[in-house]
């Protein structure tokens, strides 16, 4: 018997059986199978198992009540389509959620309060509308950080 590279390789045999080999390989392995009794035997086994499985499946499908099955599936889908209110109710059912939510709301309220209280000063601390004096000069200053207004005048009297 002529020896080939495909001699009794189980993996190749299975792929050959399932028609997964590329055409050239399929042809080569087919030639090998014709000459190899053990592979022929293995292929027969595979075929018999496959036939048996297919027969069982066909029988089950034949006996299956598809109308009943369809109704069952539609019933299951219908049960999932409950109202938005029920979904929200389900969302809030685990009350552990409420404590962190309340804490977050409180933190936000406090943060806004603190920002409102200590926010940046809008402009200088004081706006000078008018000035009168007998000094020779007057300076208006503003501190860099808190924008405090400073009036510095020279007292001559």
């Amino acid at each position: 018997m002529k020896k080939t590279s495909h001699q009794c390789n189980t993996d190749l045999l299975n792929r050959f059986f399932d028609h997964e080999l590329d055409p050239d390989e399929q042809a080569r392995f087919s030639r090998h199978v014709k000459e190899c009794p053990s592979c022929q035997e293995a292929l027969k086994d595979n075929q018999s198992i496959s036939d048996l499985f297919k027969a069982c499946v066909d029988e089950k499908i034949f006996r299956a009540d598809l109308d009943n099955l369809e109704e069952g599936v539609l019933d299951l889908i219908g049960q999932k389509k409950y109202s938005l209110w029920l979904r929200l109710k389900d969302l809030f059912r685990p009350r552990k959620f409420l404590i962190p939510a309340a804490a977050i709301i409180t933190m936000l309220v406090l943060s806004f309060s603190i920002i409102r209280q200590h926010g940046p000063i809008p402009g200088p601390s004081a706006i000078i509308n008018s000035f009168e004096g007998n000094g020779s000069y007057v300076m208006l200053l503003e501190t860099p950080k808190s924008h405090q207004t400073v009036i510095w005048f020279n007292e001559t009297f």
Partner: protein
Amino acid sequence: MLVKRLMSLLLFAALMWAPAGPVMAGPRVSIVVKTILASQGSKFIDPNLSAVIKELQSVFRYSSYRLLNQNSMNLGMGEKGTVLLPGNRVLRIMLLGIAGKRVQLRLAIFKKKKKIFQTVTQLLNKNSIIVGGPRHRGGYLLFNIFTSF
């Protein structure tokens, strides 16, 4: 039950901590005048002035800041308050009005009954203006005028 109690507690805390808004502000204005002597020489900062001086040191180069006097007053619309200043000087403050977050004041300094300084200023609530310049004992007088309403 526990959840309700916790939420009530948090709500109460939030309400207590939230600052009162301007709606609750009264028509009277509280004014505090600090008279400070700034001078060169030994380094000294009055502990009561640390917050004020920290900011002033960015514009002034004096080494000593002493609190000479502190006066408080509470003025209504059109009312006047007087503060005696060192060196026969007098500071007169008149409340002219409140506009938004600012209070309008007329500040006048007199020396020996003669007006040497006058300004009309709009001072931001809970802020201060500093008036300085008069000489006194080798240094200069600063008047820190703080208002709140």
